[in-house]
């Protein structure tokens, strides 16, 4: 999995690429740790490069959501393909997270 970041004003865009699974979830957790240490409170996760997510990847995102919430931060998701969207819908996590079709719409929502 690759993680690329860029800033759009006060929003950190975190673009994920590849597969998110039990073996690389710690890498994702570490990246989020760094964002929180740097006091990033608005994070947009771009999923358009993600081809696969397992239950450990979903759990890592929940963990990050909880941590951000504690410091009054916000997290949005965008760019999911249908396979990834399905995993969120099956687990009903689309009710927990704020998911948008694309970056443009998600950025406007912050």
């Amino acid at each position, binding site marked *: 999995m690759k993680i690329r970041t860029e800033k759009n004003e006060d929003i950190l865009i975190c673009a994920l690429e590849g597969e998110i699974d039990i073996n690389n979830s710690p890498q994702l957790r570490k990246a989020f740790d760094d964002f929180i240490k740097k006091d990033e409170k608005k994070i947009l996760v771009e999923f358009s490069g993600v081809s696969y997510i*397992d239950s450990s990847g979903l759990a890592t995102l*929940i963990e990050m959501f909880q941590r951000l919430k504690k410091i009054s931060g916000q997290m949005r998701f965008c760019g999911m393909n249908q396979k990834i969207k399905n995993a969120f819908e099956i687990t009903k*996590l689309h009710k927990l997270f704020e998911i948008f079709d694309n970056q443009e719409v998600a950025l406007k929502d912050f």
Partner: protein
Amino acid sequence: MSVMNLHERIPADLKVIPKFIRALTEKIKQLPLDERQLHDIKLSLHEALVNAMKHGNGLNPDLYVEVHVESRNGYLSVTVSDKGEGFDFQNIPDPTKPDNLQKLSGRGILLIRRHMDKIKFFDCGSRIKMIKFFKKGVKK
């Protein structure tokens, strides 16, 4: 139609999962399964292997997980067995309930159930059989 009957034994080491699944996916690509079905099988096998290695074999690399892949007339079956005592598969908490939605575990079986056409547990839950029906019109 291609016939397949594979038995594999892999140590309970999470790091071996991606390579094992990649190799198996290459083999089942010859079957009449479309890209979406291959993804569903890959995800379900991944979840079943993680459960077997973590909860069944306690991540003890000396204990093996067995995988049996068989193509029959019209479907593919993937069976994963571990050395554990099983679990109460008839009373798995529903991870989609509001109280459970933010829990950090318990979604694997739900994902398998929804990505495969049929699943069945045996041996008190230490063996799971997952079925995917071939898609009509997919020619290989």
